């Protein structure tokens, strides 16, 4: 009986210690989800390159969720980092595309104005 109690306490202690070393990356997952939403908000879907990286980010976010569910939190953290880098890139690509489009619009206006005279 006493042996059993010790074993239980030790097991519990080990379990807690295990959790302490690799806690589920809840915060990181939330951050990644936010980064994916940010990419959607800047219109990453409308640019093919940005859309590709948004898709990669989403897929990796899903993969990380699965890994967390499976208990592989260490792996999940790296997959979340991958997803972050893709979401960040999707945002930058979408912004680049819209900046290019804006520049082109103004350049066309300028050409029209100069040609129209």
């Amino acid at each position, binding site marked *: 009986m006493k042996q059993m109690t010790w074993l239980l306490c030790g097991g519990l202690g080990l379990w807690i210690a295990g959790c302490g070393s690799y806690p589920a990356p809840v915060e990181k997952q939330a951050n990644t989800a936010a980064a994916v939403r940010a990419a959607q908000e800047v219109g990453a879907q409308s640019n093919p390159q940005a859309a590709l990286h948004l898709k990669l980010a989403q897929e990796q976010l899903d993969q990380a969720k699965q890994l967390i569910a499976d208990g592989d939190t260490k792996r999940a953290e790296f997959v979340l980092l*991958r997803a972050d*880098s893709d979401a*960040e*890139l999707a945002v930058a690509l979408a912004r*680049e595309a819209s*900046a290019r489009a804006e*520049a082109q619009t*103004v350049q066309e206006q*300028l050409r029209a*104005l100069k040609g129209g005279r």
Partner: protein
Amino acid sequence: MTKNRSASLFTAGAAGATRHASFVLRACVAALFTALLVACGSTPPPKELLEARAAYQRAQTGPAGQVNPAQVHVAKESLDQAEHAFNDDPSAPETRDRAYIALRKSQLAEAQAGMLVAEQDRDKAQRDLQATQIAIGKKTQQELESTRAQLASANQRADAERQARIDAEKRAKEALENLAKMAQVKEEQRGMVITLSGAVLFASGQAALLPAAMTALDNVVTALKANPDRNITVEGHTDSQGQRAYNMELSQRRADAVRSYLVSRGIPAEIIRGVGIGPDRPVADNGTVEGRANNRRVEIIVSPAERK
């Protein structure tokens, strides 16, 4: 570099372990270990790392190196971490993860640089656009102002012309008023008839104009100039005394003298003719001195020009 260093360390250790073996054996074992370790060390880098290296090279040498050095530096650090992970454990999934992330950081640096360049292009185009708009605005303004100035000067000219016309009419009216003091002015069927007494214009029996006549005729000229579209007939009249042929000839000469004077003062010769009527159209009784004086006269008839 690190790999070679560790390889030689291991080689040294291996050589120590076989201290008591023969030189040949030691050499053989050392060679074997070295070969084994070199084989281990030459684990090919993962695709992600190769891509990350290439992407970093592209970012560093491309526009990102110029306009976005901070993010290129971040990419460099990320690549260093990946290289480090590769050195530690070439086949670990984390090595591929870090290489994947390093690749994305270089791509990020390039995308951000692309955005910065596009923004610069846009800003420059916007400045050019504004400058062009201002230039066009100024040009339009100038054109508008010059049109306004032209219009104003045209208006001024029109005003001046109107004023000149008003002045001319006023002068003509004044001249007619002055004329009325020394001549009789009547509106008749044949036009405006200005009757000048013979005594004012000529000495008895003469056809040369008196100085006083010139003042009277100058008023006639002023009045006529205000109405250029006219035909003018100058008629010389006499009383019935003396020979008719003489009177006819005298009246013609007097009419011609008046006509010549009017022409000399600027009335076009082609609109004036002089006619000698003699005693044929008396206006008063030739039986009295006063009547005869009234009959000795010159009539200037101003009639509207016939349309040709």
